[in-house]
């Protein structure tokens, strides 16, 4: 890692206590997701194997967060569920950026009818109520983890297309693009060398903020059964599974996965806020 310069963006991020705590929390979640098989004695249960002897065990030493209706250890389920919930959020945002950013850049840089065409398509996708389109697509493609990701990403990319276009438009007006043009640098080199690096910051900021929201939406889809399929579970599925028993005393089933989503989404939001402030010198002054 490079030396962190005083006053640099990274330095600001580290000074932001909320962002730092969030990063630590997310790291913890990520580590427990990645090394879940090593960290829990109930790895197979995390992958869906039932243990009917522990059915509905309330929180105890063996099962600190209790066990579900098929007796699976909730901690293991949460750790394995984190793999899906986190990756869903990240994948949605990455796919959305991968689709939206190039389109937005092309639209913004080239302008004219290409811009018009891309932006009208974007408008159509933006006009869809986000969850609803995802529901329709997931229903059409069939319920599965990857279909849910695709469905949400399809509703998400227009935001990045818009963002990338707006940024490209403002970068395109910068004198250094004109300077590059005046030298005779080719368009694709300009896009790659001058525009892309300069629009990435706001996209990364938005991306960080969006991961949390994407996790929420993905959990919503899973909650109504259109996401991760049994025997695997993500946090949304766990809430949904536990919900039937929630009011009749088995509170631990839905509470903990809900908290996990809540805290993770919060962490991404705090982190995203932190990155935004750190990346924008003007905001640093304001805050």
């Amino acid at each position, binding site marked *: 890692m490079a030396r962190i310069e005083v006053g640099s963006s990274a330095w600001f991020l580290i000074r932001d206590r909320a962002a730092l705590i969030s990063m630590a929390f997310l790291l913890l979640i990520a580590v427990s997701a990645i090394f879940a098989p090593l960290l829990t004695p109930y790895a197979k249960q995390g992958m869906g194997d039932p243990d009917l002897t522990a059915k509905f065990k309330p929180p105890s030493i063996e099962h600190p967060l209790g066990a579900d209706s098929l007796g699976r250890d909730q901690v293991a389920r949460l750790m394995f569920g984190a793999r899906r919930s986190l990756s869903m959020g990240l994948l949605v945002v990455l796919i959305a950026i991968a689709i939206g950013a190039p389109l937005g850049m092309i639209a913004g840089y080239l302008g004219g009818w290409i811009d018009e065409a891309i932006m009208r398509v974007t408008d159509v996708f933006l006009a869809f109520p986000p969850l609803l389109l995802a529901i329709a697509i997931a229903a059409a493609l069939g319920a599965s983890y990857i279909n849910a990701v695709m469905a949400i990403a399809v509703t998400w990319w227009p935001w990045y297309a818009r963002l990338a276009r707006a940024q490209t438009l403002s970068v395109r007006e910068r*004198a250094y693009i*004109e*300077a590059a043009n*005046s030298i005779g640098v080719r368009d694709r080199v300009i896009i790659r060398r001058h525009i892309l690096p300069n629009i990435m910051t706001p996209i990364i900021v938005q991306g960080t903020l969006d991961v949390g929201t994407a996790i929420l939406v993905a959990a919503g889809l899973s909650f109504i059964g259109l996401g991760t399929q049994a025997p695997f579970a993500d946090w949304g599925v766990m809430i949904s599974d536990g919900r039937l028993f929630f009011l009749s005393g088995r509170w631990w089933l839905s509470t903990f996965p809900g908290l996990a989503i809540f805290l993770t989404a919060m962490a991404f939001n705090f982190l995203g806020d932190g990155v935004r402030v750190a990346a924008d010198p003007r905001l640093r002054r304001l805050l």
Partner: protein
Amino acid sequence: MTDSLLIVRDLSMTFRRRSGLFGRRAQQINALSQVSFAIEAGETLGIVGESGCGKSTLARCLLRLLRPTGGSVRFDGVELLALGDEDMRRMRQQMQIVLQNPFSSLNPRLNGFDLIAEPLRTHTEMSRKEMTDRVASLLAEVGLSSEFMSRHPHQLSGGQAQRIALARALALNPAFLILDEPTSSLDVSVQAQIINLLFRLQRQRGLTYLFITHDLGVIQHISDRIAVMYLGRIVEETTSEEIFAHPQHPYTQALLSSTPVPDPASGGQRIILPGTAPSAANPPAGCAFHPRCSQVMEECRTLFPTPRATAPDHQVSCHLYDFAQYQRIAPTITIPEEERQQ
């Protein structure tokens, strides 16, 4: 005039801004109207005017960063407006531009080396070693050490950044340099450094300059000839000495008189123009300057004044000089107090 490096004839640039329902109504903005001038090799032509007069559009049209809607630009005998995109791209090796604010004209993500090497990468097949040597010599030429190869724009002062921008413009050994307000974002002491550098480079390399500015002090210092622009047209053009000694167009006179001189003793009566420049989207009929002109005549309101010579090598577009080629009318330059407020 055949041996002039750059000959511009009747250059026009009309922007269309779409508005109204579904953009059907198009608004025309005549940013440049029939601009003609020529620059001899090794000479500096200064273009002066206020914001919105079209001087920056002119620079961009000459380089074909914008596509002019009419006229002709011959550079070194080649008609630029007839060139294909690829030929024009190559032609840009010969003509370069330095922009006003070095911090915005240098990509903040690139370091000094990459910035200066970019034109070399674009137009030559140099090895990395050759490139490094070339960048180092360019840096030396603009008075910077090779350390600056690794500096990013935010680590530079304004003067240093403008030197990098100059080095970059010189990388391909162009013959012609357009300088678009290269010093107006700089402090006075730094501005002096850059102006001196520009002189030195012109002497050493035999460069031809088109120098654009709103600052009369700077322009008279650096230019051989000066063209004054108002609302997309050149209203007066002559040598540097002549224009300061004998300004002819009422606008030029007002401009000269409005410019504060750092000499409390110079005192004198000043011309204070009333109102502001009209919009290029909606220019007044006749002479565009007539609504602000203190000597407005009837024909000014309807008839556009074509350029005419009032002295050898002194062109003015003003009806005041209608009947008097080579004859100077000494205009009165005082305006009653009340009128100034309008």
